[in-house]
């Protein structure tokens, strides 16, 4: 965590004018990449992600196939121009880890057993990063999977929460992420409230962790609503 003398909350308002429990402006569009089986574009404030689903499709090499279900592969990558100081192309260690936890976040929602010996490939591409990129990517992946006609138990809703200047907040932007006392990204299945992604970094009390999780689940309803709207709008 970086330290700053700058106050991140002044008079109850965050740097971008938001209240602690406010989510940034959300934009979601489904069906944006014609070649993909399913695709979506999601923006939270300035953080922007594309997700594309290819599959279920044949898996080569064959020895990676599972006889009783599809395998799920997730790949998270950031554009070199998505961050302040240009990032060299290709996934770094952080991206590899995010790919792994993203797969875990999504898998419980999918009926993989309906497609033995195939692969479902979920690709997430971050075009601009301003905090909370992994949850933005997971929301995009959720929409792309539904768009692809993959049978799902539920959509997957993702959102970050944390603490800045002794205040619990929702949806951390880049600067807040850098100077936060805690950053907790969460993904969950909205109808059963099963948590499929949970990570944390920071220094806060157990009660604050529990409160943040509760806050995220509550605010996540808004994100769920946006996902549903975006899917319905695909077919207007």
């Amino acid at each position: 965590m970086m330290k700053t003398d700058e106050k991140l909350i002044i008079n109850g308002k965050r740097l971008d004018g938001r209240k602690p429990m406010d989510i940034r402006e959300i934009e979601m569009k489904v069906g944006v990449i014609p070649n993909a089986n399913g695709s979506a574009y999601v923006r939270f404030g300035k953080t922007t992600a594309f997700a594309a689903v290819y599959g279920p499709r044949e898996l080569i090499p064959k020895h990676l196939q599972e006889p009783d279900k599809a395998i799920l592969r997730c790949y998270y990558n950031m554009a070199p121009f998505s961050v302040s100081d240009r990032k060299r192309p290709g996934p770094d260690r952080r991206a590899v880890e995010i790919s792994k936890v993203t797969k875990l976040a999504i898998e419980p929602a999918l009926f993989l057993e309906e497609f033995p010996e195939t692969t479902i490939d979920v690709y997430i591409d971050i075009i601009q990063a301003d905090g909370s990129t992994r949850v933005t990517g997971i929301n995009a992946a959720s929409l792309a999977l539904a768009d692809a006609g993959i049978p799902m138990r539920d959509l997957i809703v993702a959102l970050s929460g944390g603490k800045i200047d002794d205040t619990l907040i929702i949806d951390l932007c880049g600067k807040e992420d850098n100077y936060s006392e805690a950053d907790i990204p969460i993904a969950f299945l909205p109808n059963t409230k099963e948590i499929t992604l949970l990570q944390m970094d920071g220094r806060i009390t157990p009660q604050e962790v529990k409160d943040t999780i509760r806050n995220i689940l509550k605010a996540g309803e808004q994100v769920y609503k946006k996902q549903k709207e975006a899917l319905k709008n695909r077919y207007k």
Partner: protein
Amino acid sequence: MKEYILNLLEKNKRIDNRKLDEFRKIEIQKDFIQRAEGSARVKFGNTDVIVGVKLEINEPFPDTPDSGILRTDAEFTPIASENFFPGPPNENAIELARIVDRGIRESETIDLEKLCLEKGEKVWGVCIDIRIINHDGNLIDASALAALIALTTTKIPKIKDDEIIREEYSGKLPLKHKPITISIGKIGDKFIIDPCLQEENLLDSILTVSVREDGKICAMQKRKNSLKVEEINKIIDLAVNKSKELRKLI
């Protein structure tokens, strides 16, 4: 399908009702990525490309101590096609990046002399990063156009105490020229502009030409099979002519 497309071409028609020398619908979005110093998104029909430009402080090359540096990279991101997979750029991605780079470098688009910060020590490095969002053919032309438009939106960051202050700018990237890159494909004895992916797979040959606003040719690249001299001459003329259409869009 192949015969169907070839039959249509015999009658000077294409599968999407275009004329042989007609572009698909072109959509352009400028300067929409705040993190990047410059950006553009270009669509030719369903082909969709985003280019971001980032400026960094680099050491100049020893033989050009007061000249800025240009580099161009392209990523065939897996979101764009069922045939793109995660991993380092393959030969097609590298070729595309080098073709776009050549068009910009040889035409002297960027006034690199004006990018010197400290002779022999520090210069601005301009990084053009091409990202394919959806592949429906003619990635080169779409990428080159997006790169040029991104450069026209590019701003130079402020520097304070030897540190770059991102998202605060001291001026625009100085540009001297504007090259337009056009690829012309040959099937049988027909020449087509802006091939979509299905057409691209059937081309006998394809020649990419970069034309500067003063009419000079700055770069060329032939791909696939051979061309006769008369065909090359015809393509050059066609490219120069068609470049005017794209130029209006900048």
